[in-house]
């Protein structure tokens, strides 16, 4: 982290009404996302991660900048997808929870039932995704419907990828939300690929934001690698939703620099393309922009980085030796009533 820019003598006010502290916080969440994923890579290589590992390298700004536009004090909600670790951290998810999830620990938020970042918390306002892409759009429409029905000034945000937008459930959900003028913001992350499938094989549109027209809602497009641009595009949509103005579709243009999952060798992505986007790295850019504008010093940001590393050391240390869930807990809570599934007869035979 050695930016070659020097700070201005008298810094301009940060944009979008953000405070200096808020800018630092956004940097914090981006860096936390990246560092946490780097820890997970280590743990993955040590085979301590049970399933696959999914990275958001190069996409931290889109997750953080969009989620940051929500108002947690008002009870806003979001539903992330696999590359939205950053959004979850903004919403209050902790590194320890994430580590426990990946390592299937008993104390993980899903008690070892679901993998990686598939979890949520109604208190903090996020709902865990299921794997079936698109399904969270109707679900979040239902959450937003409850806000509208109860006349609560709350907003729901739901993430979709360039690939997820091809699903029928995406279409049904966003259309439902649009017709009902629900307080909802749909963040579409255009990272160029859906697994190995490039965007032109996923859709014939040139820009994903063009899809907003089909639902009669406004569409906004922003540079997904510029955290302030992301925030600047999202915040007005969130506030319009809160004031009864209905849904907005926001396309954030970014790039998936790692493979779909850690085991994917990215043979289908050209090295030139990857390098080009590396040069546009959202964290490097953030540092440059902040320092150049005088919103942070290199030292301040380095201090944040150090704080994060300590936090992560602590979290990894805390959970590495934790046990996995006890087998019998697998039967709890399929239903509220009965609260436990039956133990199969062959497990009730002694000896």
């Amino acid at each position: 982290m050695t930016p070659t820019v020097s700070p201005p003598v008298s810094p301009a006010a940060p944009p979008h009404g953000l405070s200096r502290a808020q800018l630092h916080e956004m940097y914090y969440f981006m860096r936390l996302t990246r560092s946490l994923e780097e820890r997970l890579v280590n743990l993955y290589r040590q085979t301590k991660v049970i399933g696959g590992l999914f990275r958001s390298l190069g996409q931290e700004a889109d997750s953080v900048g969009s989620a940051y536009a929500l108002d947690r004090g008002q009870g806003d909600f979001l539903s992330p997808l696999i590359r939205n670790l950053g959004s979850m951290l903004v919403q209050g998810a902790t590194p320890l929870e994430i580590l426990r999830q990946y390592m299937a620990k008993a104390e993980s938020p899903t008690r070892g039932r679901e993998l990686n970042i598939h979890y949520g918390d109604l208190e903090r306002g996020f709902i865990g995704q299921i794997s079936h892409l698109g399904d969270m759009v109707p679900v979040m429409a239902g959450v937003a419907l409850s806000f509208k029905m109860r006349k609560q000034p709350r907003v729901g945000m739901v993430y979709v990828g360039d690939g997820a937008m091809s699903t029928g459930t995406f279409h049904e959900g966003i259309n439902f939300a649009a017709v009902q003028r629900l307080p909802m913001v749909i963040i579409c992350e255009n990272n160029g690929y859906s697994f190995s499938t490039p965007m032109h094989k996923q859709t014939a549109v040139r820009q994903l934001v063009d899809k907003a027209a089909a639902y009669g809602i406004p569409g906004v497009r922003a540079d997904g690698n510029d955290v302030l641009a992301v925030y600047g595009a999202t915040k007005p949509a969130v506030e319009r939703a809160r004031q009864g103005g209905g849904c907005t579709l926001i396309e954030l243009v970014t790039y998936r620099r790692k493979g779909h999952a850690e085991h994917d060798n990215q043979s289908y992505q050209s090295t030139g393309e990857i390098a080009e986007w590396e040069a546009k790295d959202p964290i490097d850019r953030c540092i440059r922009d902040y320092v150049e504008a005088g919103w942070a010093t290199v030292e301040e940001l380095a201090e944040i980085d150090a704080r994060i590393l300590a936090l992560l050391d602590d979290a990894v240390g805390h959970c590495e030796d934790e046990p996995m869930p006890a087998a019998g807990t697998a039967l709890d809570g399929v239903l509220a009533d009965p609260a436990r599934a039956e133990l199969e007869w062959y497990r009730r035979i002694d000896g």
Partner: protein
Amino acid sequence: MAEVTYLEALRQGMMEEMRRDENVFILGEDVGAYGGAFKVTDGFLAEFGERRVIDTPISEAAIVGAAAGAAHMGLRPVAEMQFIDFISCAYDMLTNYVATARYRAGLPTPMVVRGPSGGYVRGGPFHSQNPEAAFLHTPGLKIVCPATARDAKGLIKSAIRDDDPVLYFEHKFLYRRIKEDLPEGEEILTPIGKARVAREGRDLTIITWSAMVYKALEAAERLEKEDGLSVEVLDLRTLLPMDDEAIMASVKKTSRVLIAHEDTRTGGVAGEITARINDQAFEWLDAPVKRVTAHDVPLPYAPTLEDFVLPQTDDLVVAARWLAAY
């Protein structure tokens, strides 16, 4: 006391619950101004307004998904499928999202998905289905199938109050054909998970549910008159969770079991019941558990064909005689 139809009983049940609990609301296609394709929600828009009676686009997955999201937030949605055949469009949402929400994430998902099911109405392959079997193997769901007006009311009320997602499959053949005196002030709450002995008997049990209960009762009457057979008819009412206790009690009493359902045989619910009886009451069986079901074909439209494919009272009589003579 007032004589009400099966449909009216269902309507009243929903109405009572909506009056009782602000959190209950209705969504579905044409449920508002039109009052639903079969008029089950007739008058609801007038009484509860657009906030609680929501006409949706033709989007079964969104209807179910939105119901789930709202349920997480403490509401109690009742989603209508215009014909239950269209629930297949929400199959993913129900089996993967709704059914697992509590287990995966501790998310409360109190919601009801209901709609007109069943044949004998010349509805052809896509307006006659019985989707019980499609959801029976999904842990996390409950399934109820009322046969009587009392249970139509009692089960919708219990379903709405239940803290788990409930699929409520009403039978459209019964809508206006079944009438019953239901006391006006009485709070009818049929417990979910409990079967009902629709007719006591000693020689043989017919296990069934929904519209088939009436064919079983007709068959039982004929068998009593013509053959002197005492046939018990067990109306399961709830399929998930299944009332093993009631099933085994009847099996142990009669030792001869016919399972009758309207849906096709292979992979149908009768298989599960047969396995449970095998498992829990094998020694009491004096004869193989036999099934009377539809033939294994999509349900055809022409009356001649539909009547042939679906099980009829005569079939039950023939099958019961065979079983009694075994």
